[in-house]
């Protein structure tokens, strides 16, 4: 379509499905939030839908302009949504940080795009790649510089170190459903863009890019996980957790850049993204549910909360341990495919990254288990005020059970999701 700048293939369809489902879950998550205060309902949903549209465009875009529009469309509404709690200064502050960094990153992407255009004169990825290869420019400094600028710009969206600093603040400030959306859909959009760019344009750019990505991926895991260990605010904890997870998702792409085996890498990343989406939404839901019952943002005050809302307690166990990657919950398979793609060629960077990943899986367990530990094992703190709120609204229940089923099913019958991942990767083989 449009001379190859907009394609419909399995990759895009599968990811479109994911985005739509995630947005739907976010809607459900939002119903109560939007109703609970005097927010602008119509605009809220409109903006979310706009963002969804952007994400859908990105999955299909195969030229610079379409992709740029998609990215902007996906992220611009989020600037507003993250500041949706108008009276809340934290929300404002998160919003401005998000905005400034977002715009900066957009500019960097643009600058990179402009360089690419300048070198090749083309906008469509396949053309660009052809010319880069023909004229032996794939490893030229200009191409690399544009790659770096683009990487930085997208790195912001997927919040990898060192472009992650906005994430904790914004996550903390933004309304919870928006945070969930940010950490899932926005991040996925970024990854989709990254996957497309890396595999369509920069696949010949030499090992340097891949190696730097490998390092970024490893450092991201460490920084995310180690910082998450320090958090007392559960949302901030999830923010750092999602940073660490980004490291995992990035890892296969990074190694694919070195080995040029994008099929495996894309397969792993997409599978991870799909599984990650549901368990992360579930995790945010858990925070949401628990916060309804207690008036404290310090999770260490949440002792014994599971006894008040056992369902939330069970959700907490499922989703957080799934994030930690404990079988038979979905997260294990996500980690597994990542390890699998890292080791597939037995090349040293993949191997090292796999070891780093294994260590990080263990570190991650410590803080992922913490919330379950607090709400199930600790005794209630007496000085914290509790709000009786035992009835869980049905939209939230739906979100919970949908995510729950998907998380568990993806752990027990990973075939379903891995087939999606595999299907999506086929395109990249040709």
């Amino acid at each position, binding site marked *: 379509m449009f001379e190859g700048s907009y394609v419909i293939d399995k990759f895009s369809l599968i990811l479109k499905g994911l985005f739509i489902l995630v947005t739907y879950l976010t809607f459900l998550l939002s119903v109560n939030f939007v109703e609970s205060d005097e927010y602008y309902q119509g605009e809220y949903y409109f903006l979310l839908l706009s963002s969804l549209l952007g994400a859908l465009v990105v999955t299909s875009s195969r030229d610079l*302009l379409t992709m740029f529009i998609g990215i902007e469309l996906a992220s611009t509404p989020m600037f*507003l949504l993250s500041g949706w709690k108008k009276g809340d200064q934290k929300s404002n502050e998160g919003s401005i940080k998000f905005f*400034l960094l977002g*715009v900066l990153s957009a500019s960097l992407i643009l*600058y990179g795009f402009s360089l690419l255009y300048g070198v090749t004169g083309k906008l469509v990825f396949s053309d660009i790649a052809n010319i880069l290869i023909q004229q032996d420019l794939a490893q030229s400094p200009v191409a690399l510089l544009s790659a770096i600028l683009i990487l930085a710009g997208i790195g912001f969206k997927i919040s990898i170190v060192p472009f992650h600093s906005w994430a904790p603040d914004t996550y903390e400030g933004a309304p919870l459903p928006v945070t969930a959306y940010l950490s899932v859909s926005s991040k996925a959009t970024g990854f989709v863009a990254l996957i497309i760019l890396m595999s369509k344009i920069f696949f010949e750019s030499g090992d340097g890019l891949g190696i730097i990505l490998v390092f970024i991926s490893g450092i991201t895991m460490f920084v995310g996980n180690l910082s998450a260990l320090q958090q007392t605010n559960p949302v901030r904890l999830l923010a750092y957790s999602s940073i660490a997870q980004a490291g995992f998702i990035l890892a296969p792409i990074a190694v694919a850049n070195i080995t040029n085996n994008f099929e495996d890498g894309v397969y792993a990343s997409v599978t991870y993204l799909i599984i990650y989406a549901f368990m992360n939404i579930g995790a945010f839901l858990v925070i949401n549910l628990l916060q309804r019952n207690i008036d404290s943002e310090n999770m260490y005050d949440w002792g014994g909360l599971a006894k008040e809302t056992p369902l939330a307690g069970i959700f907490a166990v499922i989703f957080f341990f799934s994030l930690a990657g404990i079988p038979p919950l979905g997260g294990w398979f996500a980690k597994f495919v990542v390890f699998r793609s890292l080791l597939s060629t037995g090349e040293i960077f993949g191997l090292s990254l796999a070891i780093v990943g294994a260590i990080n899986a263990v570190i991650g367990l410590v803080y992922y288990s913490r919330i379950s530990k607090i709400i199930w094992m600790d005794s209630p703190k007496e000085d914290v005020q509790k709000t009786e709120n035992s009835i869980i609204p049905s939209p939230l229940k739906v979100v919970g059970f949908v995510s729950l089923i998907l998380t568990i099913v993806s752990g027990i019958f990973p075939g379903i999701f891995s087939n999606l991942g595999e299907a999506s990767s086929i395109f990249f083989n040709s």
Partner: protein
Amino acid sequence: MSIQPLLIAAAALFSIGIYGILVRRNAVMVLLSIELILNSVNINFVAFNAMLSDVFLNGQIFSIFIITIAAAEVGIGLAIVLMLFRNRETANINEFDLMKW
């Protein structure tokens, strides 16, 4: 006409914008700096288009899109700044550090 001066101008504009982002305290000024950066990209695109004599005018089209989007972003940015200003009675972005640790 050589393309270098244009590119250098664009790069300079870009750097000025970056400097502005980093140094200006007033949020509005920061927004303006962002405009500078976006415009530097525009110059790039247009210049490249001219240099390559791209018959599809891809660069030109791209820059029009950028202008549009820049406008939208500044609008959003101003909205956010306004909201902040209402709540904090200041537009100094250095004072926004509630979530320091």
